[in-house]
């Protein structure tokens, strides 16, 4: 196994040296959609707590009376759910409410410092008919009913469209990058067909034959992953500054998304290469 890996790296580097220009193009073609997807996911993650991204139902925020005890509140919510089976009611925890307030109103830091306990209990009602929630305005348990067409929903609509555009664009660019990797491997396979035939005849296994091609696409993939991480960090930093000027909280890329970007950088071209080699390595080099 060690010999196969050593051989794959040595021969893969030779292929890369011979085709330096196309490896750079492949790395860039991969880096762009990965960075785009990374920024899209970061925005989704950042907007998630403050915007309705599910897009299935309208949500209406209902502020409950702060003096209501928790047991009494639970019973009241259960009754409400029984009376209105078409409503989906979710309680927003005080910590989540604090996070939302901090994201939208970072200048309220002093208020937040006094602790979550000062915040009134909030529930969200998801329904197809947001007007039906207005009936709660007269209830003594309710302090206020939020707007039925809130900024949350507007933001959600905008975010959903943006996510769709970014998603489609990323998908198309991913497909193009994958296709580029596959076509490159295919051409290299034909260019090295004589060598592959000789390798087969002298007893090389498929792993030994295919390894160099996999290394040759994996290295631009690693570079693409790294470039995409740098690209998304720069973009998100710019967006974060923009958010700060609008008085909103700073934005940062979660570590998981960065790791995912690196993984996709390696995985996508490898997948394209594996499929291409599986389909064509024997046609190209019969023996």
């Amino acid at each position, binding site marked *: 196994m060690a*010999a196969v890996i*050593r*051989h794959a790296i040595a021969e893969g580097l*030779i292929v890369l040296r011979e085709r330096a220009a196309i490896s750079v193009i492949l790395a860039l073609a991969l880096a762009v959609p990965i960075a785009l997807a990374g920024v899209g996911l970061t925005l989704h993650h950042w907007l998630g707590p403050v915007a309705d991204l599910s897009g299935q139902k309208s949500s209406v925020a209902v502020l409950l009376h702060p003096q209501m005890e928790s047991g009494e509140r639970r019973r009241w919510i259960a009754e409400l759910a029984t009376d209105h089976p078409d409503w989906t009611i979710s309680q927003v925890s005080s910590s989540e409410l604090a996070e939302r307030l901090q994201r939208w109103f970072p200048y309220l830091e002093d208020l937040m410092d006094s602790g979550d306990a000062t915040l009134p209990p909030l529930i969200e009602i998801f329904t197809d008919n947001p007007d039906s929630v207005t009936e709660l305005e007269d209830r003594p348990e309710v302090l206020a009913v939020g707007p039925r067409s809130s900024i949350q929903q507007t933001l959600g609509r905008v975010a959903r469209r943006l996510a769709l555009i970014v998603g489609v664009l990323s998908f198309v660019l991913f497909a193009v990058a994958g296709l580029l990797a596959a076509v490159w491997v295919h051409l290299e396979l034909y260019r090295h067909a*004589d*060598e592959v*035939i*000789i*390798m*087969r*005849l*002298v*007893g*090389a*296994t*498929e792993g*030994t034959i295919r390894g160099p091609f996999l290394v040759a696409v994996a290295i631009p993939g690693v570079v693409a992953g790294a470039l995409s991480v740098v690209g998304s960090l720069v973009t998100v930093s710019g967006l974060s500054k923009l958010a700060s000027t609008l008085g909103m909280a700073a934005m940062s890329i979660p570590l998981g998304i960065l790791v995912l970007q690196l993984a996709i950088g390696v995985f996508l071209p490898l997948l394209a290469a594996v499929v291409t080699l599986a389909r064509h390595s*024997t046609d190209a080099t019969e*023996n």
Partner: protein
Amino acid sequence: MIRLRSVSKEYERRTILDALDLQVDAGEFVFLTGPSGAGKTTLLRMLYAAERPTEGEVWVAGRRIDEMVRTRLPLLRRKIGVIFQDFKLLRRKTVLENITFVLRIHGVAPREAHRRAMKVLRRLGLQHRQAAFPDALSGGEQQRVAIARALAYQPRLILADEPTGNLDADLASELLSLLCDINYQGATVLVATHDHAILESIPARTLVLHQGQIHYDGMWPP
């Protein structure tokens, strides 16, 4: 070592091999001769599983190879050293790399591969050409590199297709004595040639192939 049972091969309705039966025991030295188009190369290609017969069974080193799955062929081919008529050298690699490359494929450590390759190059008088690329070599030198590569991993069976075709009389004789040495060490050697001078230089079992059938099987000259 080699056993063929009623092996036939047809290309586009033309019979190349016709119900051939053959047995070569381990340690034998055998010449395979016959006119051009008699089926010598096709027979050799079947023995290293580059061709499958239209009918019949092909057994090599105790394994039936005409039905062998592709993934098992590498292990079989590692037991066979093939000296190809058209050399089949890797154009982008030097003489030394052509040999170490094969040894590395066979799992030999780089240092040991280098040592073995140098040893076989010295034996074939090619040590001074170790850094040359195949295209810079004469036909005879390329032939010797192909031979060196086949011998480097000490296979149990050596198949040689016209191995002296590009060599002068002295080198041809040297090569034959090399193949005899390897044969004395226990390897089975099957040499396809149409050069009668070679057949007469070593007393060995000779198979004469004509129109896809073995017309003569015995010592040469008859």
